[in-house]
């Protein structure tokens, strides 16, 4: 039993990697090869699909747009969530539990419900088709999550730390920035990671709120279906490239990720 234990995660990881392998392998094939005959690996590997993406602005700008609004969202969400999470972890105040649950309800709202009203709201305030619109819209579900995660990490820090700092003559802002945030930096990293992740993978709102100037890469991908037939190779290359930013970010938080998924509450 114990000897065969490594088999379970190995088989599971193989299962996870199979569809990814298929996508990556297709990205090195020509569309003719994909549609023509079934091959397990590219017979004549080509970089043509990637070349198209990196030379055509309508493709690579999609990546730039996505990364811009995702980064913007991560900064806004974490910055706003930090003081709020501190309040929830350290103090009791009128309506605190209700407020906390109300925040969480926004994490539950189906994006499909809000798509149309969001379009109207952001058009009305003149933010339609800007990176800021998508970044702000994604705070709807990222702020509750960031507050939830940070609160979990902050509650793990003993209150004595705060009290000692005040005795040593620290003002609150100085204590918060110089001592408290460095203490929970793993939590900040994990919260940022989750904001990045959920903003990166969401498409429905991002697509609804943009037209040309801030169009995300995932929406650009839908165009291959309509304009020039099904360019599967190109689609696969674009899909492969969307996996890379996530893989890079995940590498940085790998040691804290398990705790982060537990929202800091283990």
């Amino acid at each position, binding site marked *: 039993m114990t000897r065969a234990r490594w088999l379970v995660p190995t088989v599971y990881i193989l299962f*996870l990697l199979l569809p*990814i392998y298929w996508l990556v392998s297709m990205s090195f094939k020509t569309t003719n090869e994909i549609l023509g005959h*079934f091959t397990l690996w590219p017979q004549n590997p080509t970089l043509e699909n990637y070349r198209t993406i990196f030379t055509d602005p309508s493709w690579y700008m999609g990546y730039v747009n996505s990364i811009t609004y995702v980064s913007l969202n991560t900064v806004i969400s974490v910055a706003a969530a930090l*003081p709020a999470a501190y*309040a929830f972890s350290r*103090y009791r105040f009128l309506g605190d539990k209700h407020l906390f*649950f109300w925040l969480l309800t926004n994490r539950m709202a189906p994006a499909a419900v*809000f798509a149309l009203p969001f379009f109207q709201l952001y058009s009305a305030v003149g933010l339609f088709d800007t990176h800021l619109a998508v970044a702000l819209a994604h705070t709807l579900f990222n702020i509750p999550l960031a507050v939830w995660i940070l609160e979990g990490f902050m509650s793990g820090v003993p209150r004595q730390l705060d009290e000692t700092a005040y005795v040593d003559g620290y003002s609150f802002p100085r204590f918060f920035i110089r001592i408290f945030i460095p203490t929970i930096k793993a939590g900040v990293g994990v919260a940022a990671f989750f904001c990045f992740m959920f903003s990166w993978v969401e498409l429905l709102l991002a697509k609804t709120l943009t037209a040309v100037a801030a169009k995300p890469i995932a929406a650009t991908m839908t165009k291959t279906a309509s304009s020039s037939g099904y360019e599967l190779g190109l689609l*696969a290359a674009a899909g492969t490239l969307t*996996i890379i930013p996530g893989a890079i970010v995940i590498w940085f938080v790998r040691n804290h990720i398990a705790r982060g998924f537990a929202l800091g509450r283990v």
Partner: protein
Amino acid sequence: MNGKIVNQKAWFFVIPVLLLVSFNAIVPLMTVINYSVQETFGDNVFFWSGLTWFQEILRSERFHAALTRQAIFTGAILAIEVPLGVAIALAMPRKGIWVSVCLVLMALPLLIPWNVVGAMWNIFALPNIGLLGKGLNALGFDYNYTRQVGDAWFTLILMDVWHWTSLVVLLAYAGLVSIPDAYYQAARIDGASRWAVFRHIQLPKMRRVLTIAILLRFMDSFNIYTEPVVLTGGGPGNATTLLSIDLVKIALGQFDLGPAAAMSLIYFLIILALSWIFYAVMTRNEEQ
């Protein structure tokens, strides 16, 4: 929640969050409520229609069918992903370089944009050019998810298991590594069986993280839209038209804003009620 100081000034810390979330949550929610009680014949002229849309939706067979499909989908993926995730977490290595490798590889599916997940599985499962579809047919199964209802459901659930089981694994794993070695040593001295260790040491330690896992998986699977739309488009026929897909069809396809808004609210209330139960259970556990 014990040991906290009562301090009403803490509200100031919450203001930025409150403003941002209110802007995004309250205005659109009011818009939806507004549409749900009005009737329009175009030209932006609206009439008060009271609760007729709600009555219509609650009685419509179409809504019942979508809700049933949604319940089956969510039930099925919870029944598969939670036990499977726990089993994989139990078998994961605890120390060494392989932990990082496993965690990073397992987290990969979570970071792929949802429409890419759908597109990837759409092609992966195609019977003529996809590895899965071709493979299943080569093994003698008559598999075609674009035509057969059973196959469409199989693919949809397999895709979700592929996409989200890692979330349960990571959560369960976080619970497991927090158990001190001393517990296991004590169990060995008592001669506890493998099952007893699981039942009395590992499961209680995982209870809290598993509640989070179930809560997150419940909310997200109930809201699922992009992946099934790209994979099956809700078909064949309406066989895999889940709640969100149906909602978007009504709102944007037919532009029936009133019924769509009423349906949104009923939908949201269902999620809210069920999530509140999970949340209440979870916070009760924390207070104990």
